[in-house]
């Protein structure tokens, strides 16, 4: 007998696939034990794959897949909410349904709760005002700045919107420049265009 015999017992190829299966069973077991604080799930949409982050309180974040921002976002969730983060289709299904309905052009508002624990300070006021902009309408950075009582803070408003952890649901895509220019979007200007087309603000290209 030599040491390689023992290594062979572990079966390298099999443990890779078996460990993946076992890891896949963990989220449900964790949920049963009350240990799944943050469920993460993927959703496909007309503006690309989305990552949704759902806690017991509600939707805490949406990230555009393929975004470098994704890792940074999950690290923030780990620090500011809980590091008990696991992929869980079950935990994210209710939000998947509402978002699917939104993209299928029927739903004009979201009913499930959101978790605002990733939103702090002035961003909280900015995003609250932003949430009031109805489906199919737009507002401007300056108008939001005025509403939160800092009329000259349009830039800070822009930054708060750029750091919006729950895009689409907190509709930062409905905020544009005073000149009518779309200016920017954390998920890329193309996505902002698609969302405004979906809501009928822009004519489909």
């Amino acid at each position, binding site marked *: 007998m030599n040491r390689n015999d*023992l290594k062979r017992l572990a079966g390298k190829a099999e443990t890779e696939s078996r460990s993946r299966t076992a890891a896949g069973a963990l989220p449900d077991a964790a949920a049963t034990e009350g240990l799944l604080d943050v469920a993460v799930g993927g959703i496909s949409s007309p503006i690309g794959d989305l990552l949704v982050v759902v806690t017991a309180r509600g939707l805490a974040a949406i990230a555009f897949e393929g975004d470098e921002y994704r890792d940074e976002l999950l690290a923030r969730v780990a620090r500011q909410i809980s590091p008990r983060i696991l992929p869980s289709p079950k935990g994210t299904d209710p939000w998947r349904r509402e978002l699917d309905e939104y993209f299928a052009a029927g739903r004009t508002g979201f009913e499930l709760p959101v978790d605002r624990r990733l939103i702090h300070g002035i961003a909280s006021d900015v995003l609250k005002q932003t949430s009031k902009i109805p489906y199919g309408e737009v507002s401007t950075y300056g108008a939001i700045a005025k509403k939160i009582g800092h009329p000259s803070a349009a830039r800070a408003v822009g930054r*708060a919107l750029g750091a919006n952890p729950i895009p689409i649901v907190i509709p930062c895509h409905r905020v544009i420049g005073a000149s009518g220019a779309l200016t920017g979007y954390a998920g890329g200007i193309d996505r902002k265009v698609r969302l405004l087309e979906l809501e009928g603000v822009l004519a489909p290209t």
Partner: protein
Amino acid sequence: MAAVGLAAVESEVAVSSTVPPFQDFLEANRATVYRFLTVAVGPADADDCFQETFLSALRAYPRVTRGERLDRWILRIASRKAIDHHRSRARSALPTAEPPERATTTVDPTSDDALWDAVRTLPPRQRVAVVHRHVLDRSYPEIAELMGSTEEAARANVSQGIKKLRELIR
């Protein structure tokens, strides 16, 4: 007007944890833990011990000490689970239980079956130490840390285990 200090506000948020998202930690360590458990408790029980190991880790995860090496932390938990698994087995075994199957029948000594039979005869701590040393290639100081023992005890467990395996498998 000066820009309102969003960054300053964010830095005041209480930092509750410095560990990575659990899913990243699981992905980085699952294969090693599974390899360890496959030999340490056997393929039939590896799945159960794997779930128990990572559920224990998940329970304690928000309180992991800053600076802890997570790859070693999870193997410490897995080592404990493997040893507990064998001990609870031994306790629940009936005194009239059959001796290990195939113990007296002739088998091809080079087959995995013979090696598995030999591995099953090892006492839990020897078996776990042997797996750390010869499946995962860990150093003795590290094995001592993983098993909460002295380095001398780790060396003794490995050498006694290997000696016994060599007696059973030629």
